[in-house]
């Protein structure tokens, strides 16, 4: 993996994978759109909308393209709302756009920190003697054998729901996966011939680890990280949905679904569209991760 000509081969191969796999391309496009939308969300939508109340346009559907059934109502005066309004008369589409950056930021912070905690503990486990290795492995065992959502709920009840707590909680739950993964990767990489060759040439341990072994074993972790952006958004929104939202009006996708449930039959759009957004974001990152895995898996190359 040290050859200079490799990057160009990689780019060509990447393009080939993208054209062969339309779904991956779709994932990349959706993810780009979502990231751009969330970067500019405060320009597109007035951030004060979250705290505004317009009871004249409460729980109404803003166009005549869809008939939601007998218990739902259309907005008065033909006021146009693309995705209808919620209990406080707020435009749902704007609320969804407002919610995007928060969800993405939480997921990004959690995955990045879990990645680095896991990578460092994993390398320590793989490189130190069996005693430390065993201790680290047993701790990951412990965390991996409790259903993650349940542990998150217990911690959230105990320490109270706040954004920082929620982020910390999920971080605590997520590092074991990366520890396991990086430990396995590094153990396998350590036994390869080129490491032997480096050692015989007199390269130091630290140099071998950080210049050679870690870069060569990091790709599966990157795939996992891409997929985990989606998974973390799912678990964050599940926690918010189950009632761990720090504030009632917080524009967060799971919270929006949760707030919509009281009016599920009169305003089904309040559940359908925020949930569909969570699904789309998770799907985009999962499609990307899936394509990355194909890209990096030498067994699938022809």
């Amino acid at each position, binding site marked *: 993996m040290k050859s200079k000509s490799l990057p160009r081969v990689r780019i060509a191969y990447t393009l080939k994978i993208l054209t062969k796999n339309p779904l991956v391309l779709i994932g990349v496009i959706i993810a780009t759109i979502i990231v751009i939308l969330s970067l500019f969300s405060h320009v597109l939508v007035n951030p004060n909308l979250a705290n505004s109340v317009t009871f004249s346009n409460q729980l109404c559907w803003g166009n005549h393209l869809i008939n939601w059934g007998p218990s739902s109502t259309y907005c008065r005066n033909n006021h146009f709302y693309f995705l209808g309004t919620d209990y406080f008369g707020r435009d749902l589409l704007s609320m969804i756009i407002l919610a995007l950056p928060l969800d993405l930021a939480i997921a990004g912070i959690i995955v990045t920190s879990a990645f680095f905690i896991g990578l460092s503990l994993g390398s320590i486990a793989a490189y130190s003697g069996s005693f430390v290795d065993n201790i680290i492995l047993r701790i990951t065992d*412990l965390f991996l054998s409790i259903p993650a*959502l349940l542990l998150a709920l217990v911690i959230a009840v*105990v320490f109270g729901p706040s954004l920082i707590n929620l982020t910390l909680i999920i971080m605590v739950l997520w590092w074991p996966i990366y520890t396991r993964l990086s430990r396995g990767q590094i153990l396998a990489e350590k036994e390869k011939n080129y490491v032997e060759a480096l050692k015989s040439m007199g390269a130091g341990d630290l140099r071998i680890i950080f210049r050679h072994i870690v870069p060569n074993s990091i790709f599966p972790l990157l795939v996992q990280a891409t997929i985990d952006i989606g998974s973390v958004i799912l678990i964050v*929104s599940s926690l918010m949905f189950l009632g761990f939202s720090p504030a009632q009006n917080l524009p967060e996708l799971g919270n929006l679904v949760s707030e919509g449930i009281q009016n599920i039959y009169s305003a089904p759009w309040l559940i359908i569209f925020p949930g569909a957004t969570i699904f789309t974001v998770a799907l985009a990152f*999962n499609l990307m991760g899936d394509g990355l895995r194909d890209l990096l898996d030498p067994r699938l190359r022809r």
Partner: protein
Amino acid sequence: MGLLRFLAKRLLLMVGVLFGVSVIIFVLSRGFPGKYPPWVQYLSSLSSNPSPVVIEQIKAAHGFNLPLYEQYFFWLRDVFSGNWGISVWAGNLPTYTVFAKRFPLTVELAVSALIVTLAIGIPLGILSATRSGKLPDHFARLVSISGYSLPVFWLGYLLQLLFAYYFKIWNLPYLPSSGAADTAFIGTVPVITGIPVLDSLLEGNIPYFQSAFAHLILPTLTLSLSLLGYLTRTVRSSMLEVLRQDYIIQARSKGLSERVVIYRHALRNALIPAITIMGLIFAFTLGGVVVIEYVFSWPGVGWASLQAIFVNDSSFLMLFTIVSAAIIGLSNLAVDVIYGILDPRIRLK
């Protein structure tokens, strides 16, 4: 190492893990009396603002004043006496009784979801691998990746809206959206196993069976759609790898039909990695039931654990996590043993 020694070692490790799990949950739920202190379930719901005297009385009466490690020993005493503590919120019953009554319902949901997942996931994975890069593969990829991108709670409500609410509006045969059977059957039919679908069949009670089965459909669908992705992807990638092996080329060159090559020669080896992720699937199932039972008001242990969380009933939470951890641990152990039997190259370490 012999199988028995391997089993003994792993079971011993598992006991350690279960002990660790119980300590984690115990310290979390008893050690930090924040918004929901563990004695909150003993307060009567009428007194919204209890006097400090009442709280002190409750704390003294139920041992919440003792040091944490002593409380843990009291919990251990409750465990060995068989009642695992008292769950006040569930009618002042022993925690074990509360759990045991609901557990069969969770088993019903989990098992039916696993059956559906296996029945769809394995053929879909095979199809995806044998038509790799073609339309069926893209379809299977989309289905499985969608599966693990779905917010479970959202899917649950979506199915409820469609099959319970809109089907009713459109005068189509609609499905029930909450509970494990019609309320008319609850308490009136004898309980044998606690699993409504099985009980009704054992008693030959056809209306009860129809009701229980209809109630099972939507939660099962929700759970299995969210599990499907992992299985399909694993079957696909292991099948692809097996199909590239020399013995498959040889089987094809012998002139065997593609069907025989795939189902008689390749599938058996390709399913081994699929078995190894069953432990993971069990773990996901147990996490998923908490949300799904809540969405469908399914009276199993997942929903109960959510209710227990909000009154900080540490004894119920510990029982639930210990049972979950034991199930995950045992299924991982079973996977390792089956793995060794199916693939003699792998030795148990």
